[in-house]
């Protein structure tokens, strides 16, 4: 682990760092374009896995090892599998024609508007001093969490400490949110009772 974080700005990037960034940036961009342009939803989901993996590599590159692991386990392992499960479950894994533009001029307008937004972001990055405010409001990325020798250090220990102290209320709120989401998913996916469905069909049919 790097404990010379304060000297970050002065040290120059090494060749392995540049290569890792270039490779994962290429993986991320190819995956992202694949999600948008795939005619088949299954291919789009697999491209999404590619992008998520590249982002996880960049997390490791930036001293966020725990988040990289969580990214792989939760995103690639749970969310994308859920996507694939729904695609297969509904049987919508057939190709669609992506060249058809149902709304005339909508794609051009989308590209123009997103291009303006991207240009604005890049211009803001290039011209303004974007790292503002105080450093280390919450706590350092790595370092021992107590003064005692042998105390756990590193960003996993720091993240755990902050989650259970500074962000304790938000952490508990996410627990409630997950329970609500699970209950909501069960209620949504539950088939309505037979009598209720019959009534509905009678009401809809002319």
């Amino acid at each position: 682990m790097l404990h010379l974080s304060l000297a970050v700005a002065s040290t120059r990037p090494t060749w392995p760092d540049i290569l890792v960034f270039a490779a994962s940036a290429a993986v991320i961009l190819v995956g992202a374009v694949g999600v948008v342009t795939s005619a088949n939803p299954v291919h789009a989901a697999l491209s999404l896995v590619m992008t998520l993996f590249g982002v996880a590599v960049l997390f490791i590159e930036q001293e966020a090892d725990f988040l990289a692991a969580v990214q792989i386990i939760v995103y690639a392992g749970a969310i994308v599998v859920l996507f694939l499960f729904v695609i297969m479950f509904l049987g919508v894994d057939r190709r669609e024609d992506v060249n058809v533009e149902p709304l005339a001029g909508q794609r051009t307008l989308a590209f123009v508007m997103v291009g303006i937004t991207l240009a604005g972001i890049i211009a803001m990055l290039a011209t303004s001093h974007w790292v503002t405010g105080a450093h280390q409001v919450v706590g350092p990325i790595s370092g021992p969490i107590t003064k005692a020798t042998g105390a756990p250090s590193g960003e996993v220990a720091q993240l755990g400490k902050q989650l259970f102290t500074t962000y304790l209320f938000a952490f508990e709120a996410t627990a409630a949110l997950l329970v609500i989401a699970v209950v909501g998913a069960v209620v949504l996916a539950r088939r309505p009772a037979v009598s209720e469905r019959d009534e509905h069909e009678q009401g809809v049919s002319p």
Partner: protein
Amino acid sequence: MSLSAGWYLGLAALVFSIGAIGLLVRRNVLIMFMCIELMLNAANLTFVTFARVLNDIGGQAIVFFVLVVAAAEVVVGLGIVVTNFRRRSTTVADDLHSLKG
């Protein structure tokens, strides 16, 4: 040491833009969801980059919460997609025009 933050932020901006274009252009609800995930990932990358630059663990804590909220959002969203598919047999957003006057 890792590259300067500008590279990471530029990459995140690009991924966010690709996700936004996909969300606007595609008609399949499932792929629109995946594009939202792309945009969330771009934001996560920005948070982690600023956490490194400012040497502040708070950025990584926010990413943790974004992950949880994204998981909950996908669960409920896909539940809605499944329910809607049962009624209308489609996942294309253009076919959902029951409210059209």
